[in-house]
């Protein structure tokens, strides 16, 4: 409880007016001072308010589509004595933007009375829970002020559907299972690989009859085997990765998560095993797997796991890249290849890509460009980033640069035409 001291000065003013009134033998100002005296008497008698409130919050829907407007209705009920001056500040989650009406209200409540106010938030990907509502109560003359909080649990889960058909050619690191990634292993397939000497038992259709006619020796055609890959999608979600060219644009993490969802969807549809993880102090690991159940799991992880949250992790939990990498390697299946999503505005993701690539987990880096095109600072950051990416390319990591205004499908298509398996 604090005293507002809003009436400070009235005593002095009243005394002055009283004194001058008496000196000039003028009754009017003396009576005016008496009015001030009355207010001061009430001020002295005022007791601090004791707010006892119950808050109820009703969301229009608890599981909206991303970008949808959700109306939030807050009802506050007075369960104690009368509160003549009450100000409420609702604890809107950090990741949600209020788009209509401030989440604040001022009212006065008799005992048992309730007040309702409403505002609208725009749903954003993730799992959001409301913070306590801040309550500021004052007594009728505003001498005492008490600030407390009232909590009402409310949660909003916004899980975007995994959609998109943006495919990215995978690198040649595969599982023994059949799939769609062409390998350098000769066997069954579509594409020509090599010719070898005929062995007993080879299927007749695979015998190279042209060659037999020309040379009289039997030879067997070998085709590239097509196999499934194990892909782990890693999103750089450290606090430094939450960058965007302009404040109102989507952050690099947000774009990365969308792209990872689209890619994961496409890879799962093609029969590959897909896992996900976040390069972030907040731990998240979805082991690579296939199937519709796994698809739902992946969607929920990308949509609501705190590690992929739309707001950055706090400075309280730092990340030690080396420890993260060790833990990640223990979990990673040997034949897994990585698709790393990172804006590459600092060195740890670059080192991570280089190390894991060197360890045989072939890495493809998808890097959404967060540097603004104008301004010296932006250009400098862009140059630094370009050097980092050049270093990665020379180290054998495949890099897909994804412009700030480009849809992911376009960038992926551009890369697919340039890269070979």
């Amino acid at each position, binding site marked *: 409880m604090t005293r507002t001291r809003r009436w400070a000065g009235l005593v002095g003013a009243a005394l002055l007016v009283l004194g001058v009134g008496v000196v000039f033998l003028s009754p009017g100002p003396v009576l005016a001072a008496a009015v001030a005296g009355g207010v001061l008497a009430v001020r002295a008698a005022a007791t601090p308010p004791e707010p006892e409130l119950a808050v109820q919050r009703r969301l229009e829907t608890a599981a909206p589509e991303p970008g949808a407007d959700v109306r939030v209705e807050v009802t506050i009920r007075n369960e104690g004595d009368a509160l003549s001056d009450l100000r409420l500040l609702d604890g809107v989650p950090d990741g949600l933007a209020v788009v209509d009406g401030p989440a604040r209200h001022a009212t006065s409540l008799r005992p048992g009375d309730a007040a309702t*106010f409403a505002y609208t938030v725009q749903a954003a990907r993730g799992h959001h829970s409301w913070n306590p509502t801040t309550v500021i109560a004052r007594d009728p003359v505003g001498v005492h002020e008490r600030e407390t909080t009232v909590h009402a649990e409310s949660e909003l889960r916004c899980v975007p559907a995994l959609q998109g058909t943006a495919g990215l050619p995978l690198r040649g690191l595969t599982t023994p299972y059949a799939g769609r990634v062409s390998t350098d292993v000769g066997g069954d397939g579509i594409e020509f690989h090599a010719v070898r000497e005929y062995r007993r038992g080879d299927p007749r259709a695979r015998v190279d009859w042209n060659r037999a006619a020309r040379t009289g020796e039997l030879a067997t055609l070998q085709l590239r085997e097509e196999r499934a890959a194990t892909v782990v999608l890693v999103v750089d979600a450290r606090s430094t990765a939450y960058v965007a060219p302009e404040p109102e644009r989507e952050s690099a993490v947000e774009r990365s998560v969308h792209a990872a969802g689209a890619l994961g969807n496409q890879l799962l549809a093609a029969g590959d095993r897909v896992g996900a993880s976040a390069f972030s102090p907040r731990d998240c690991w979805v082991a690579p797997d296939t199937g519709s159940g796994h698809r739902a799991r992946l969607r929920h992880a990308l949509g609501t796991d705190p590690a992929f949250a739309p707001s950055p992790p706090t400075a309280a939990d730092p990340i030690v890249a080396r420890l993260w990498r060790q833990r990640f390697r223990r979990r990673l299946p040997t034949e897994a290849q990585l698709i790393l999503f990172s804006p590459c505005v600092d060195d740890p993701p670059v080192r991570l890509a280089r190390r894991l690539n060197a360890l045989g987990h072939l890495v493809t880096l998808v890097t959404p460009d967060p540097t603004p095109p104008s301004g010296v600072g932006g250009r400098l950051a862009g140059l630094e980033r370009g050097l980092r990416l050049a270093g990665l390319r020379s180290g054998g990591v495949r890099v897909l640069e994804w412009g700030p205004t480009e849809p992911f499908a376009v960038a992926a298509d551009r890369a697919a035409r340039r890269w070979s398996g």
Partner: protein
Amino acid sequence: MSDARAVEGDAVTPAAAGGPDASGAAEAAPGGREAPAAAVPTRAVPALSTATAVMLGALAVAFLAAASLAAGAVGLLALALLVAALTVVSRRLCRLAGATFAAAFLAAAATPATPAPLVGAAVLAVAAWDVADHGLGLAAHVGREAGTARNELVHAAASLAVGTAGGAVAYGVSLVADGGQPVSALVFLLFGGVVILAALRE
């Protein structure tokens, strides 16, 4: 958006409502976008409080002018300051307006003034200042767009009721005790008034 409580400053400018910080490779807002302008509370006094305070102030000036023209003139200055305080959202200006209202009563003491309108003027001036200051507090806490009508009306009514009760008691006593008091009675009145006001100090 985080609804962190606004700090009540002495001088709060409307521009302090906060614009996006657009410097270099800017940090993205949580959720990837900045809250639209409609959602950021405007640090302005709610319209009802502004209207009520100005109306009460104007009435107070009218009562002051009815008592003595000099007091009315000073009161007009006080009203102008009050309007300025509500427009630029400044508590300092509001305090200055209150002090100028007090000066108007000093002017009334120095000139021959009829007592009855001064009592009314005192009630209205205190209420006007109170409503204005309350509105400034609301501006800092919840802003202009929030629903505040009930809060403002209750406060204005309470303020007027307290002032009116005080004024009625004082005027009633003055009517009963009317007559040619000796100077010693005035000295005792002054002494008593000082003691009461001193006792009511914070």
